């Protein structure tokens, strides 16, 4: 018997009022796999990114994460599962609070989830920063004191703090220069190799998608187009 997929999305429908942004989309994603969602602006990619962790409740359909249908769960029931699926966004500066130092941004998930203690918390934060290729001294800085690539690495460190199984990467490298982009993509590939993370990788650059993804889903007008 093959193990069940990390993520199994069935007939997902997301609506905003009368507008159907995502129309009966189904796919699966395994641990250690990168599945790319590719398509033009407005095709529904980001709506899927928000509907999977139930940040936007879908209109209908099922989202099975590690075998449990998230659409059936209350906010209270979702809370222990949410750390296991983390989002990384396009704008590295916009996804970190401009007034929180990097180390506080990375420590916050640990504190919120009750996994912080003052003895080894700071060591854990330093290890996370090193894991994403940042010198721990960057922890003292504010987001605007980092480059775009460094800031995106800090965002990834913050996501890793929750010990996720699934990363939803919404255009994580679109705002970066080619050489900086290459470094962040290499980091994501290393993390996947070492930790077996599943990636839902939203990207509109076909060359990056071809390079980075194991499988590609093409979207248009809210639907998956035939491969």
């Amino acid at each position, binding site marked *: 018997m093959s193990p069940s997929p990390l993520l199994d999305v069935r007939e997902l429908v997301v609506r905003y009022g009368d507008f159907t942004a995502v129309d009966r989309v189904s796919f699966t994603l395994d641990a250690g796999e990168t599945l790319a969602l590719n398509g033009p602006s407005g095709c529904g990619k980001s709506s899927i990114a928000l509907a999977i962790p139930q940040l936007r409740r879908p209109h209908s359909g099922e989202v099975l994460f590690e075998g449990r249908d998230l659409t059936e769960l209350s906010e209270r029931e979702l809370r222990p599962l949410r750390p296991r699926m983390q989002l990384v966004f396009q704008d590295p500066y916009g996804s970190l609070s401009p007034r929180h130092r990097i180390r506080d941004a990375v420590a916050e998930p640990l504190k919120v989830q009750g996994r912080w203690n003052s003895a080894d918390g700071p060591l854990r934060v330093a290890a996370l920063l090193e894991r994403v290729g940042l010198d721990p001294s960057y922890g003292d800085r504010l987001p605007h004191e980092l480059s775009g690539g460094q800031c995106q690495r800090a965002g990834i460190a913050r996501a890793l703090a929750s010990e996720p199984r699934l990363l939803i990467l919404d255009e994580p490298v679109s705002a970066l220069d080619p050489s*900086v982009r290459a470094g962040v993509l290499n980091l994501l590939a290393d993390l996947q190799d070492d930790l077996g993370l599943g990636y839902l990788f939203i990207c509109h650059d076909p060359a990056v998608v071809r390079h980075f993804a194991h499988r590609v889903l093409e979207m248009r007008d809210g639907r998956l187009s035939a491969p």
Partner: protein
Amino acid sequence: MSDVVLSVRDLRIAFDGVAAVRGLSFDVYEREVLAVVGESGAGKSLTARALLGMVPRGATTSGQIRLRGSDDLAALRGRRIALVPQDALSALSPVHAVGDQLAAAVRSVQRVSRRQARALAVAALDRVGIPDAGRRARAYPHEFSGGMRQRAVIAMAMVNEPDVVVADEPTTALDTERQEQVLRVLAEQREAVGAALVLVTHDMDAVRAHADRALVLYAGRLSELGPAPDVLERPRAPYTASLLASLPRYARGRRLLALPGSPPAPGALPAGCAFAARCPLAAGRCHTEEPEPADVDGRLVACHRTDDVPHPATDLFDFQEKQPA
């Protein structure tokens, strides 16, 4: 080769004594597309602004920029040289109809009646493919899609038929499909108006598809300048090679080339070549003496080791370096 329309000589731009553009010289020829590439902080956008006489307040500028022999760039702006900015939404006034904004641009330069200016504005919108331009001219920017806004901004840059159009990362905010569409419109309009285009970009595929020549900048200096196909196919500066090698098509397995380190901060420049600390060929005087641009096979290259750059140049780099675990 055709005539020089815009010439830049020893351009230097500094903030509080910290140099961001450090002695840049190049020409723009009539009707050519010159791509300006390099990473954030290389001085691309600052150079583009300087061409329009729009250097930020607080900057000290020296050197010479001449457009058809004149150095009064502010007076020529909108008339003989125009800008297509990166962010079309903030380039347009939210409280004026798009057609009125184009007509105002016409009337700021040409002595025509309101009615004539209006007609020119509508025609310009029509040429960039805004459907039903007569009616859409009365719409406001928020009623346009992102791609339409970017095309309207192109129409505004072209409406007075300038000699040079400077496009500062005109497609960064758009998806691939719209990027291609906007670049196509820009190329068509440039052709129709007979303008030269200075295209600031970090998209090497756009350079390949649209540029006649490529100017590669690193840390505020010229790294390489030459015919775009030659520069892309056989770079002679290691920095250009590193830009190409970081593209997915040159990946080795899942690994992309990511150069270690980052460009030197302005104000903390090393004694020699600014790229030396990241360059696999750096040796000897690379660390002591900054290379000057010199003629190499019909292009300009600023590198002491240019004769040692291999072909393919992507062989220069070690792709296997792992991130710290």
